[in-house]
């Protein structure tokens, strides 16, 4: 179509407007199905179709025009109240909406309307009209009785037939090309840098005449940055809006009844993120309908309402957006998932045996997994949740699964507010600076400088670090980033690397050695050039000094380093030998050593944190030993004395402090507002053990004993011990900061 050349802008606008219009169209139709016919609703969708038709005339889309025309005819009959919008009518109108969308898509990708034949839909539409005489393709808009619409329906003003007339709602908004917004965002980023430089200079020069203007500059720049960020934000309902329609169609084709609920539709997200989560969310929704919600009869026999329910929830939390998709369907049968994964060879039987219940359900995220009993057209083609997971992780998000077998499933997706600006940890290694997204950072460990190898050991070919008893594999950045001159040789980590940054990605933990850790900063993320697509870097950013730093792609790093498998298994072997027959529930236990009592286990759930205190920081208050910790007074209890030599628990007075050790390892126990510290001789390890207690407790202060690594180990009952040792504190009296 040659005459289209000069009309590109108009065409693009038409496409965008039509797509928005059709979204609205679908929404109203859906609403109509539930509470039949408000005449405003009919008028509104009439207007949508009408303006599409008008624009088609100008742009020369004949198929689209005739389609819109017959839709318009049908709607005008409905508007006059001559036709009730029954299910068949609504379905037919949906079919028209699909046809229009298809044509629009082909217009968007090329210039023509594509080879779709609108005739069947047109015939179908026409068949509903009482006075149908067979000629649906009347080219004249005047056929439509516009003026004598139903009395309570506001007549469409005649002028709106011209697509160039602005709609009333459009007066306050304008359409802006996203690339322009991107450019503005870049310029603002640039301005922020200049502002930083100006601020630094004025601060250095003390009281200069520029001080006040530079403060103003600071303020305005921040506001400008915020404003420009806002222009890119869109409510999540732009994506969700399509979901009720999708669910309706799915339900129709698989004979289920599902109601969709939405909470927080106005939660705003960066446009790029919104685009990125569209497909994964749709997939999750399809899964819920197809696999989650049961057939109405099945539901009834379970005592659930026949109509299933899917709820979508979005809200902001701590600089992130949380999206929850939950259904009240069957949930995941983790046994079946385990069997399926085994059958497909996705997981080894030994590994499966050591997995706790909740982890089994996570197997659905493995590539190539699909539990659907029958493969339907909707979902269950073997590509499934793993794709959802990769997509979400690609934009720096995480997916969590909460399974309630028989009751339903909740998927919680956490995504950053915007891709443009993220908090990151700045580290220096290999004499370069790198930014690590804060989302991937678990903790930073400072290496002991005394040992020559700094505590780094070797497991097969991989360097590992013993972090609280678990082997933490370390990725060698020097190997990953540079050409490796020595292959596979066990070489000590580069001298001068003093920190391990512990990262997590895709359920794996690993560490990287870095020279120094600078600070956390909000960084402006710039994508890498398309010529440089790398699996190691997620992008680049400009630092305060104007230099460029690369942003690490943590999942990519983990994949490239290939360091996860063997060590995970070693950790499992170590922590739970022969636990396959001990049931599926596991508990994490901290193994501690105590001079007089040997090894003991403490459920990790009882411990709020572990702390090291210098021994000379112990103060005495009344007849208690205390530490100052985080601005509060922490009473401490020495486990060895508490349990006494013969095993009987001593209460009341604690013996004088032994000061031979330079630092004390303390397990902090918290109950409500109150905390107490238990001093142990050594903190050994954390292991996952089956939570069955083999022997009941023979004395107070213990829960019982169990087998850990083939040894009978006693499990301490910290709450009981705390109550016994300081009854006053753990029965209601507040200890406050003022007391010190």
């Amino acid at each position, binding site marked *: 179509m040659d005459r289209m050349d000069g009309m590109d802008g108009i065409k693009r606008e038409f496409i965008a407007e039509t797509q928005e219009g059709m979204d609205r169209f679908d929404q109203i139709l859906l609403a109509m199905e539930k509470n039949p016919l408000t005449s405003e609703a009919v008028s509104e969708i009439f207007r949508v179709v009408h303006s599409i038709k008008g624009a088609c005339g100008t742009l020369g889309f004949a198929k689209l025009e005739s389609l819109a025309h017959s839709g318009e005819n049908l709607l005008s009959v409905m508007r006059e109240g001559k036709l009730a919008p029954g299910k068949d009518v609504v379905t037919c109108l949906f079919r028209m909406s699909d046809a229009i969308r298809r044509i629009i898509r082909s217009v968007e990708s090329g210039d023509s309307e594509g080879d779709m034949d609108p005739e069947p839909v047109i015939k179908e539409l026409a068949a509903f009209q009482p006075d149908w005489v067979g000629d649906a393709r009347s080219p004249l808009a005047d056929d439509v009785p516009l003026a004598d619409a139903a009395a309570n329906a506001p007549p469409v003003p005649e002028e709106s037939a011209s697509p160039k007339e602005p709609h009333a709602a459009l007066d306050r908004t304008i359409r802006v090309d996203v690339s322009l917004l991107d450019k503005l965002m*870049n*310029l603002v*980023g*640039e*301005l922020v*840098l200049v502002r930083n430089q100006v601020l630094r200079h004025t601060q250095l020069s003390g009281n200069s005449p520029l001080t006040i203007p530079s403060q103003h500059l600071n303020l305005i720049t921040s506001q400008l940055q915020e404003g420009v960020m806002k222009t890119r934000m869109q409510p999540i309902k732009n994506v969700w809006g399509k979901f009720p329609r999708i669910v309706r169609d799915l339900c129709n084709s698989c004979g289920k009844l599902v109601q969709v609920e939405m909470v927080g539709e106005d939660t705003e997200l960066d446009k790029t993120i919104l685009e990125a989560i569209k497909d994964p969310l749709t997939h999750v929704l399809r899964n819920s309908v197809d696999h989650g919600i049961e057939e109405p009869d099945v539901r009834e026999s379970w005592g659930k309402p026949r109509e299933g329910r899917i709820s979508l929830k979005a809200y902001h939390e701590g600089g992130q957006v949380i999206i929850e998709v939950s259904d009240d369907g069957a949930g995941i049968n983790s046994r079946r998932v385990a069997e399926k994964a085994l059958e497909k060879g996705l997981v080894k039987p030994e590994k499966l045996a050591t997995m706790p219940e909740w982890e089994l359900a996570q197997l659905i995220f493995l590539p190539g997994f699909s539990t659907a009993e029958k493969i339907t057209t909707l979902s269950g083609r073997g590509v499934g949740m793993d794709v959802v997971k990769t997509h979400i992780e690609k934009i720096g998000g995480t997916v969590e699964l909460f399974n309630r077998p028989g009751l339903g499933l909740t998927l919680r997706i956490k995504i950053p507010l915007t891709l443009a600006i993220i908090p990151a940890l700045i580290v220096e290694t290999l004499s*370069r600076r790198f930014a690590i997204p804060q989302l991937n950072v678990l903790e930073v460990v400072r290496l002991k400088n005394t040992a020559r190898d700094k505590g780094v050991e070797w497991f097969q070919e991989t360097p590992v670090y013993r972090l609280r008893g678990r082997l933490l594999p370390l990725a*060698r950045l020097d*190997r*990953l*980033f*540079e*050409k*490796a001159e020595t*292959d*596979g040789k066990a070489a000590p980590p580069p001298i001068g690397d003093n920190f391990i940054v512990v990262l997590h990605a895709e359920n794996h933990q690993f560490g990287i050695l870095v020279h120094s850790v600078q600070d956390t900063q909000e960084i402006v993320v*710039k994508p*890498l*050039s*398309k*010529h*440089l*697509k*790398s*699996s*190691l*870097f997620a992008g*680049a950013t*400009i630092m305060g000094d*104007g*230099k*460029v*730093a*690369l942003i690490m*792609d943590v999942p*990519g790093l983990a*994949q*490239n*380093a*290939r360091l996860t498998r063997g060590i995970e298994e070693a950790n499992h072997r170590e922590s739970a030998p022969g636990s396959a027959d001990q049931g599926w529930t596991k508990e994490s236990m901290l193994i501690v050593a105590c001079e007089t009592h040997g090894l003991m286990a403490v459920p990790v759930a009882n411990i709020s944190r572990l702390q090291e205190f210098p021994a000379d920081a112990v103060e005495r208050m009344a007849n208690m030993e205390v530490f100052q910790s985080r601005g509060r007074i922490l009473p401490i209890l020495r486990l060895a004395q508490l349990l006494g030599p013969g095993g009987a628990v001593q209460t009341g007075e604690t013996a004088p402090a032994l000061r031979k050790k330079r630092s004390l390892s303390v397990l902090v126990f918290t109950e409500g507002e109150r905390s107490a510290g238990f001093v142990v001789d050594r903190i050994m390890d954390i292991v996952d053990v089956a939570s069955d207690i083999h022997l009941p407790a023979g004395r107070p202060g213990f829960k019982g004993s169990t087998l850990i690594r083939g040894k009978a180990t006693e499990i301490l009952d910290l709450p009981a011990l705390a109550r016994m040792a300081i009854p006053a504190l753990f029965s209601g009296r507040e200890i406050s900061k003022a007391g010190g």
Partner: protein
Amino acid sequence: MTQYCTFYLGEKTYGLEILSIQEIIRIPDITPIPHSPFFVAGLANLRGQIVVAVDLRKLFGLPPLPKSQDPINIILSSDDEAISLLADKAGEVIDFGSEAMVQPPSLQRGPAPEMIKGVFKLKDALMNVIDVEAIFKNRNGADTEESRPSSIGEAHVNEPR
């Protein structure tokens, strides 16, 4: 008539169509990128925009510029992103009719013959006109450090993301 901007790499004279050039500027700090194609010097900050810097000397197989000498960045503007070409120094602007351009001899040897669109005869030298489009063409997967043997051993997964 087309205007060309000349620049130098060592002794040799090269040219670019002036309309493809956004600006010529010195950017002191370039951040190298691990596992990028061998001719990519790294990323540079052009007033808040991150541009990929291409080391033309490496591309044409010339020895690196002495440390004492800073290269210039010839910033090429394109629709979606800017690229910087590192050259020794900029020359002048010359007018040429396109008929004066000679096809490069087909037997031309060198590391990157496909990069030369054509040759103009100057008074005392030949000006090789660089085909900007060709820089990244067919080079993304083929001739990068990644695929060179023994670059990082088994630690590398060749997976496009």
